[in-house]
């Protein structure tokens, strides 16, 4: 492709695509204090509802690591009048699906159901009970605790899990984000710990309800009001302290696997930080842009050192991590580490080239429609906007925010948050 033609064509393209807006999001609050975001879409007979609570692992009490995930796992294993088999059978009869997860900040429960009244009505009734009236039966508690311990023990034999756990502990030190379940901590949990965790964290003030799909505004309002009435009003979550930054260092752990797993990084930015855009654009060129990034070219394409190498920023309620990760034959771990550090150092001192900046913008702006081309993807975005209280025009202004990034802003943002002296390295593998 002729570079000049590309330049002209691309500028024109950017101009056209900047006109694209996100979906129309409506926002309100229920009387008991839950925040609601709603996107109305009638093209498919599907309704998605996701409820996010400020009930992640950072909210666990000291000595109770594992209680957030165990509470979440037990929500649908017993409500008044129904045991776990009846709940799961009922959902299956309706064709409804429950999903969700727990991270440092959030515990999410998502329901996908057909939108016909005879399907969505009973499915939503169940969701209300699961969130507001879980019974945490003792036999289910003991069984799920044992399964969790088994899974944690298994994970501790895997180089990727060992590397990840070591990395998180190292970059967050004494901060709640460093807290991680261990076989010992979970074995020590009692049923009362789960009941306490639920009582303190699963309430309307800590809830964000995202609704996407085949429903009218009035129906969505009624749905959200009913959901939040099923929970105690509670108190809003307190802000977490800012984590102290690590002072660098390298940790090596022996492992018999064929490959070594390498992680480098540190805590960087909060969700909502305006510097997110220069970091996102810059990281595309460094290691986020799939096959076209510098790390991929140097580590994989030129040297065949790894199948996958990537870097990312993951903003959280508090400073979330920047991380570079890869796996390589253990004999060449040091070479891979050297190449990675060189790529990073060069990038930090020079930033992306103008051509790289343009390529990053083309992709991030051009691919915007792909971020929103299904109800599922719209739901993910809307839930994120709601939980982290991002501006309602976040998606509408997304392309514009990317377009405004310059090489200088990338370099400034990277040198502010990625100080090599604070960067932690973890290598699991080899002797």
């Amino acid at each position, binding site marked *: 492709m002729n570079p000049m033609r590309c330049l002209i064509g691309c500028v024109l393209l950017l101009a056209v695509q900047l006109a694209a807006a996100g979906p129309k999001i409506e926002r309100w609050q229920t009387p008991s204090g839950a925040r609601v975001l709603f996107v109305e879409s009638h093209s498919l007979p599907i309704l998605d509802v996701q409820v996010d609570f400020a009930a992640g692992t950072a909210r666990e009490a000291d000595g109770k690591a594992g209680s957030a995930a165990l509470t979440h796992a037990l929500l649908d294993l017993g409500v008044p009048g129904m045991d776990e088999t009846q709940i*799961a059978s009922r959902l299956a009869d309706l064709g409804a699906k429950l999903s969700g997860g727990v991270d440092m900040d959030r515990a999410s429960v998502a329901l996908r159901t057909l939108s016909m009244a005879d399907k969505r009505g009973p499915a939503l009734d169940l969701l209300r009970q699961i969130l507001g009236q879980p019974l945490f039966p003792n036999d289910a508690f003991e069984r799920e605790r044992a399964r969790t311990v088994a899974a944690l023990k298994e994970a501790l034999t895997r180089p990727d899990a060992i590397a990840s756990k070591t990395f998180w502990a190292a970059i967050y030190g004494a901060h709640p984000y460093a807290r991680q379940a261990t076989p010992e901590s979970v074995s020590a949990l009692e049923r009362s710990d789960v009941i306490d965790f639920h009582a303190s964290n699963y309430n309307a003030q800590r809830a964000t309800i995202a609704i996407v799909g085949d429903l009218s505004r009035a129906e969505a309002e009624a749905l959200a009001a009913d959901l939040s009435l099923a929970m105690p009003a509670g108190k809003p979550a307190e802000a977490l302290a800012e984590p102290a930054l690590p002072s660098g260092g390298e940790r090596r752990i022996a492992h018999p696997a064929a490959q070594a797993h390498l992680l480098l990084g540190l805590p960087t930015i909060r969700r909502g930080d305006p510097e997110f855009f220069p970091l996102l654009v810059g990281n595309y060129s460094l290691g986020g842009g799939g096959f076209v990034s510098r790390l991929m070219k140097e580590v994989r394409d030129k040297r065949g050192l790894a199948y996958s190498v990537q870097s990312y920023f993951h903003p959280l309620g508090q400073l979330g991590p920047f991380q570079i990760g890869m796996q390589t034959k253990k004999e060449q771990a040091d070479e891979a580490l050297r190449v990675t550090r060189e790529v990073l150092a060069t990038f930090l001192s020079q930033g992306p080239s103008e051509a790289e900046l343009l*390529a990053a913008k*083309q*992709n991030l702006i051009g691919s915007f429609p792909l971020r929103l081309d299904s109800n599922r993807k719209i739901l993910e975005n809307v839930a994120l906007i709601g939980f982290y209280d991002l501006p309602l025009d976040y998606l509408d202004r997304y392309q514009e925010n990317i377009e405004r990034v310059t090489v200088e802003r990338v370099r400034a943002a990277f040198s502010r948050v990625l100080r090599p002296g604070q960067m932690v390295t973890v290598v699991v593998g080899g002797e």
Partner: protein
Amino acid sequence: MPAACTDTCKFYQKPPMTMRYARMIHLLLILVLSGPAMAETYEHRLANGLRVIVKEDRRAPTAVHMVWYRVGSMDETSGSTGVAHVLEHMMFKGTPSVGPGEFNRRVAAAGGRDNAFTSRDYTAYFQQVPKERLPEMMQLEADRMRHLTLDENEFSQEIKVVMEERRLRTEDQPQALLFERMSAMAFQSHPYRVPIIGWMSDLESMTAADARDWYERWYAPNNAYVIVVGDVEHQAVFRLAEQHYGQLSARTLSARKPQIEPAQAGLRRLVVKAPAELPIVMMAYKVPVIRDLERDIDPYALEMLSAVLAGHEAARLSRNLVRQQRLAVDAAASYDSTSRGPGLFYLYGSPSEGKTRTEFEAGLRAELALVQRDGVAADELARAKAQLIAAQIYKLDSMFAQAMEIGQLESVGIAHAQHRRMIDKLQAVSAEQVQDVARKYFVDDVLTVAELDPQPLPRAPRARSPFVGRH
């Protein structure tokens, strides 16, 4: 997003999952589909034999473009296993008009995402793009369909990447390793015995010439089909396809040898040792797959049985073995009724702490015996059918999933237009038919059992000890 192989992973990390149930539709879905602005499917054949299948879905201004080749790891021969997948990697390494790495660069510049996957049955390439960039994608795919460079230097780098992929996804993954070794025992003659990624020794001795030979033999318009799903007009897509793919010539394809697996006569058992904490038991029974869409009954009944055993949290295996008896931390079943090669019905999981592999295997066998003796209840079957219908509607929320469905059916020789007949057949499965297939196929003579015998790490890592270098 590392290159290559969503499907490779699916197949060699674990048995194909229960996702295939999502292929079924129902009256409800037919009603949905008949509404305005909903998906319509059209097909056109070019003079060179390339088929183009278009499904219009106007919900968002994007499109997915896929090229499927009717060749997978089952077409490989001894000594050059893994070549189908290696060629898939090499397809990103340039043609005379599009340099190495340029393919990815152009897709990225178009705001697109691209990747590829190799399975036992097929090799497929895709791009998801804003709809106005579709012509460029067709131009790029048509170019590499016949004009791949296959440079020696690029090959020598890329084969190392593939070996790293094998280390990452098989050698260091006990479950994937177990599945690989089990397949090599369950099949002794049929090429399903070979891992998609290939044996390490074959990768080490592979040359650019092997990849070239593969490319020349199988990459031609008459051995491929194109699928486009998205906000497009089908006639316009057909014109684009004529313009870009129409200039390529058809080629004579190699004959495919049947390589039929001899009947198994007696139980096979193997043990694999690997660093792990949890034991795994995997059982695989030889069963039929769909060969005559209209006359077959058993594959449909096996699909429903798999759903009754493991289709949801309260399905039999989870309810009885995990929840009630606490014999297992996980227990599941899986079966895929559509494949080019022979079928297996899998049961697998891990025993709870304090329970042995033998006890867990006995638990799985007891569940099968229960179906053989008492059959399945009407409400269990109805529940499985309700889930399948819903899953099919949910699939309409993803253009990619709709394109995959068409591609996978076509790869085994089922025309996508036949889909609705499959649904009818599945909906018609009776409880008696489910019991019949359980009695007919779950016998030791056609069973292979693989066990993972977990080995402790040589030295327990102190992953949670204080970090060195922190204040």
